[in-house]
């Protein structure tokens, strides 16, 4: 494709990467390019290869085939230290040492990353961890507090690349909102954010691009609008009648203007029936995800 153009200035380049454990493929022939200031959502069910791909990009495992470049270098090489200094990672089901306090934990990771510890207070405030909680041992933390601490350590040193693996599982809705606010701020500041989740509905509006994974393969990649036209899922039009009854019809995406015109025309021309409300329901990310999985399974 236009590889030379897209990979120029890209923070992450994944080319034909496969990862095999024994006979099983965790990741199979995946190509992926991410640019600075881009927020990419990677969706897929459990075992679709999301976490395996992140581990490859972190250099924790090495690909069986293919090539990975993060910030211009091989993340698994011996000289990856300077890459990792600019990478933040929030692992799925994050674990800390329970006997250390929140502050000690963040201090430890800041020291490892070579970041001055003076910024830690600001980080705690940013992720909403109370000063009283910071002094307590991590073992006493609730899931939400652990997740905030996990985000704080991922933000250490202002990373250029941020991997968030299932960051909002177990968080209440209010916390999720503040979580995505932070992610948006980072993206606007030029950080490449890769967000993994299977809570699809909450990703709508957060991600610039959606990558759908299934059984180790990338089955779809594009903006929400692109995916929508690719999937060609029917759009539902819901008409509310004066008597309160609801009529629902479906139409193709390209046909929706004509369909609405037909519906409104019907009430103008025949005069008798009036439509009190019209509602157009776009296929949700959930619907599209299900569609791409069905298509993948059919192939």
């Amino acid at each position, binding site marked *: 494709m236009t590889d030379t153009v897209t990979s120029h200035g890209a923070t992450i380049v994944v080319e034909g990467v496969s990862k095999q454990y024994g006979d099983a493929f965790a990741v199979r022939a995946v190509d992926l390019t991410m640019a600075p200031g881009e927020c990419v959502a990677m969706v897929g069910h459990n075992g679709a290869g999301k976490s395996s791909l992140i*581990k490859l990009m972190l250099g*924790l495992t*090495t690909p069986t085939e293919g090539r990975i470049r993060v910030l211009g270098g091989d993340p698994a090489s011996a000289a990856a230290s300077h890459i*990792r200094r600019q990478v933040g990672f929030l692992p799925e089901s994050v674990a800390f040492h329970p006997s*250390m306090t929140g502050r000690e934990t963040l201090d430890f*990771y800041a020291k490892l990353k070579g970041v001055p510890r003076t910024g830690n207070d600001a980080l705690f405030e940013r992720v909403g961890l109370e000063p009283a909680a910071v002094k307590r041992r991590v073992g006493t933390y609730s899931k939400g507090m652990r997740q905030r601490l996990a985000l704080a350590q991922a933000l250490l040193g202002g990373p250029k690349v941020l991997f968030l693996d299932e960051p909002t599982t177990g968080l209440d809705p209010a916390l999720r909102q503040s979580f995505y606010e932070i992610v948006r701020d980072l993206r606007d500041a030029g950080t490449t954010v890769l967000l993994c989740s299977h809570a699809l509905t909450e990703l709508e509006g957060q991600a610039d691009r959606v990558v759908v994974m299934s059984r180790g393969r990338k089955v779809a990649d594009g903006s929400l609008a692109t995916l929508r036209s690719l999937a060609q899922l029917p759009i539902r039009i819901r008409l509310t009648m004066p008597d309160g009854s609801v009529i629902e019809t479906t139409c193709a995406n390209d046909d929706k203007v004509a369909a609405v015109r037909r519906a409104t025309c019907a009430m103008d021309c025949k005069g008798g029936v009036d439509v009190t409300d019209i509602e157009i329901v776009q296929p949700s990310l959930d619907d599209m995800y299900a569609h791409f999985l069905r298509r993948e399974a059919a192939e």
Partner: protein
Amino acid sequence: MNTLLIIAGKEVRDGLRNRWVVATTLLMAALALTMSFLGAAPTGTVGVGPVEVTIVSLSSLTIFLLPLIALLLSFDAVVGEIDRGTMTLLLSYPVARWQVLLGKFLGHAAIIAFATVLGYGAAGVALAMGGTEIGAESWRAFAAMIGSSVLLGAAFTAMGYLASSLVRDRGTAAGIAVAVWLAFVLLYDMGLLGLLVADGGKTLNAEVLNWALLANPADAYRLFNLTGFKNVSLFAGTAGLAAHAQVSAPVLLGVLAGWVVAPLALAATLFSRKQI
């Protein structure tokens, strides 16, 4: 270098928090003090000082106890962190894998060293306050005993790390640690004795026996402490052996150090190849 110290420091703090350090130090001190008080009782007529008695009994005890403590402390070090998920996060930081392994080892070795020096040192203080005249030679033997104990602890810590990097499951690592302890501390000498008896001195000469003893860090430690100093070997009944011992004290210490370095190097190699 700095990264090593950060990781080692975290390990020491963990040890302080979960009471490993306190428990180990107290255990060592309690045993050492018991030995020194008991050891102080029968002296006088035998012509050996209380320090020598303490060294003999304490070093015999160390061979059983310290490897066990070291293995318990270390078998979980790698596999446990991978299991809990803390290793994934740690390795996503700018640290090399050998730094993680060596840093953690240094932390655990420091805990062992602290507990040994403080625990056995308490016995030394008790002996010094006992009132009996104690010669400089005796103190040297006592200091050598403490130093070689730390080295023995480090050797078994390194073997615990090897077990921990070898397998994917914590239970298996624990099993290997127990097997290592049984093999080196209990079964090895029994097997060797059995062989000697069965062989009747036909093929197993002194040189072969020497090499066989060097192949076990616990035996190297025993030889070092029981034959290294004349007063001690007199009391231990190993004076005859000491006269025939062809292995000098520096060699024995070198062997112990080798038992620290070799398993650790192997563990580092295995760990660096591990897919996490």
